[in-house]
């Protein structure tokens, strides 16, 4: 019989863990935290930093706990005077290649390297500093890559190549010359980078951070000629609280509305409203393709700008499959500068639309194509990530936690539970199916069937077959771009054989977990945290009386008074976009 678990001792404490568990993981099971800077819970160990060394029985070597599996009968010591001394020296060596620029760094106060230096009580520079000065890469407008702050842990490369399958970043050269960069001497914007920002979410230092645009927003808020409006994405509400000490997944919608008004925004909208709008358009598109046979199947979701960029660069044979519906952010932007402006009698040129997103790629989406200017102006003027909003609130001197809840402004603020779950992987699919079911059968899903459980969860690819009025609807959900290829290859194979597609509807989100795990969310993401944030959204959905996008009264009014029919001429002009094949490498 093959043993499935091993028994060992860590610091004298007995542990029993599955075979193959690393010493690092095994130690966590007995509440022992071994310091590490390169191992991330999402990623394979790179054994680069050398901080997680431990002592094991019968060996004089100091193996790295992240990359060494615990063995039967092994005795491990994780902390003693010698280990601390060696770790300290290792840390000093890392610091000797790192600029002493914490006070002006984007990660100041929230940096793993800084935290480690604090924990080890480093009080002086023991080793002469050698820092390789290279110009920061600001070319994407979404993320800023400053190589001088890189500690060569390899997380960004692991996440870019293996988790996201983007391969924009690579380790070039070797030894002291090693640097992370796109292939050849090109900027990130000329590379296959899709600006998902997962590198910034996984970087332990300030080497990759979001492009901070808080100053631009402050300036706009102080400008008396501008009428500043704001929207917040579904996933922001369950993550922002982490920056203020709330447990992950706490829904702070009401407080966020309140703080945004205090910051000076004249109208507070909710992207979740536009998520409902997206669903109306996308579900109509699905029905048109599925029931009336107009257009390619599977229909593929397009609300994730990083995924759109990836598809345009890598899978341009799927252009006709993409939903032409704009993302909720862009839909809200255009509605604010047309419908809202008209209703309130404000010159749309004066409206300055800020959106708070979990995402760095959203910064790119603003000027993606001409359709992002459908209102006659730039529909959304600037994007702040969740991290940037947290920073603005802290700067403002507003006691966020003490604020009383408020409501959003009513024209573009009411939303359904279906819109809320947009922020989680599978959420767009679920929301669209709820409405598509209604469109096809003329009635709503039964109360107990509203939660479409097979599309929920955190597995990389999930598929389900649903029965809609006797029709088989095959759907699939993928998140984390490394999972997309298998799915699309299945579709390609069926296409080559002239068979019916294996799926009718596919949802893709670039970031693992969907938007709640976005590249602009508070740091420290791992599956545990993703689950908590998703849980927060699901609870908010379940607690809402309104759970179908098509029942949102404001959406109904909007179509009746302004847009006309879903997929109609006006809706098409304002709410839809186009895609084009792009070169992965510009040079």
């Amino acid at each position, binding site marked *: 019989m093959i043993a499935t678990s091993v028994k060992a001792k860590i610091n004298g404490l007995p542990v029993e863990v599955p075979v193959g568990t690393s010493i690092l993981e095994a130690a966590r099971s007995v509440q022992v935290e071994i310091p590490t800077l390169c191992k991330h819970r999402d990623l394979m160990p790179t054994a680069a930093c050398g901080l997680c060394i431990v002592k094991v029985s019968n060996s004089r070597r100091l193996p790295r706990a992240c990359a060494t599996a615990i063995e039967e009968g092994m005795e491990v010591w994780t902390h003693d005077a010698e280990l601390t001394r060696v770790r300290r020296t290792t840390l000093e060596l890392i610091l000797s290649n790192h600029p002493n620029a914490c006070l002006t760094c984007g990660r100041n106060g929230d940096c793993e390297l800084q935290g480690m230096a604090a924990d080890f009580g480093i009080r002086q520079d023991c080793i002469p500093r050698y820092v390789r000065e290279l110009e920061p890469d600001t070319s994407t407008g979404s993320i800023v890559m400053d190589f001088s702050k890189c500690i060569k842990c390899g997380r960004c490369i692991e996440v870019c*190549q293996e988790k996201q399958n983007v*391969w*924009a*970043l*690579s*380790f*070039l*050269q*070797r030894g002291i010359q090693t640097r992370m960069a*796109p*292939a*050849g001497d090109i900027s990130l914007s000329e590379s*296959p980078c899709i600006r998902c920002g997962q590198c910034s979410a996984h970087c332990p230092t300030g080497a990759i951070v979001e492009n901070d645009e808080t100053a631009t927003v402050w300036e706009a808020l102080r400008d008396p000629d501008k009428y500043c409006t704001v929207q917040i994405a579904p996933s922001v509400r369950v993550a922002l609280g982490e920056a203020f000490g709330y447990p992950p997944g706490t829904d702070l919608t009401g407080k966020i509305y309140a703080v945004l008004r205090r910051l000076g925004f004249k109208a507070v909208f909710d992207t979740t409203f536009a998520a409902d709008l997206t669903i109306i358009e996308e579900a109509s598109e699905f029905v048109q393709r599925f029931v009336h046979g107009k257009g390619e199947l599977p229909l593929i979701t397009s609300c994730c700008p990083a995924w759109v960029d990836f598809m345009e660069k890598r899978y*341009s044979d799927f252009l006709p499959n993409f939903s032409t519906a704009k993302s909720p952010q862009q839909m809200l932007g255009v509605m604010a500068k047309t419908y809202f402006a008209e209703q309130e009698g404000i010159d749309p040129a004066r409206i300055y639309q800020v959106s708070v997103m979990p995402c760095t790629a959203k910064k790119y989406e603003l000027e993606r194509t001409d359709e992002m200017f459908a209102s006659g102006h730039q529909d959304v003027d600037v994007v702040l990530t969740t991290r940037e909003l947290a920073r603005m609130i802290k700067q403002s001197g507003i006691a966020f936690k003490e604020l009383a809840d408020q409501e959003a402004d009513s024209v573009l603020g009411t939303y359904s539970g279906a819109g809320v779950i947009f922020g989680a992987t599978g959420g767009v699919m679920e929301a669209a199916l709820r409405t598509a079911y209604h469109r096809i059968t003329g009635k709503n899903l039964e109360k107990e069937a509203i939660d479409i459980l097979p599309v929920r969860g955190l597995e990389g690819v999930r598929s389900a077959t649903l029965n809609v009025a006797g029709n088989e609807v095959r759907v699939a959900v993928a998140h984390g771009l490394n999972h997309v290829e298998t799915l699309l290859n299945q579709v390609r194979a069926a296409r080559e054989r002239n068979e019916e597609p294996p799926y009718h509807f596919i949802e893709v989100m670039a970031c693992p977990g969907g938007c709640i795990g976005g590249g602009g969310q508070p740091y420290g993401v791992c599956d545990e945290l993703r689950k908590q944030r998703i849980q927060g959204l699901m609870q908010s959905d379940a607690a809402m009386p309104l759970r179908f996008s098509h029942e949102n009264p404001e959406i109904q009014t909007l179509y009746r008074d302004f847009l006309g029919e879903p997929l109609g001429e006006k809706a098409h002009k304002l709410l839809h976009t186009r895609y*084009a*094949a*792009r*070169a*992965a*490498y*510009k*040079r």
Partner: protein
Amino acid sequence: MYKLRKIRFSYLIWETFCMNASALAPMETMDPELRGMVERCLQEWEGREGNLIMILHEIQNRHGFVPREASLFLAEAMGIPMARIYEVLTFYHYFKLIAPGKHNLTVCNGTACYLKGSGRLLTELERRLSIKDGETTEDRMFHMESVRCIGCCGMAPAMVVDQKTFGKVAVTDVAGMIERIRLQEESDA
């Protein structure tokens, strides 16, 4: 590890891509002669394990360096990310990404050669050619550089002159090496 996909040419897809002006922009400028050469290298090593590095060697041997378009072409044809190709190209000092001088003088600076005095060979070359390590003479005739181990430690210190390896090189040999090339060039002219 990234598994090398079997080399596969799908000219249909290829041509469709090339027709789309925005897609694959950098490859449009690829010289047909270079493209033919890269295709031949690919065919030669088709389906063999670990062929990327051999193909890159072949391209450099025939072309003098590995142009960016050639890497982009390989990435597409072999299904290997461009990033991985550049990781290989920049890891080994041997590979050149820009056109070198007509004649290459390479000094091995690996541990064995270093201990056997490769530094003196470098200094002598720098003095004789009036260029620094990694530079090319103004007339583009000579390019000199030091590389990490070329795998000839038994012959340390070693030099590679135009793909020919010389072992146990003495400082006094250097002037002769340069002179022979110059004379050859003059007689060819």
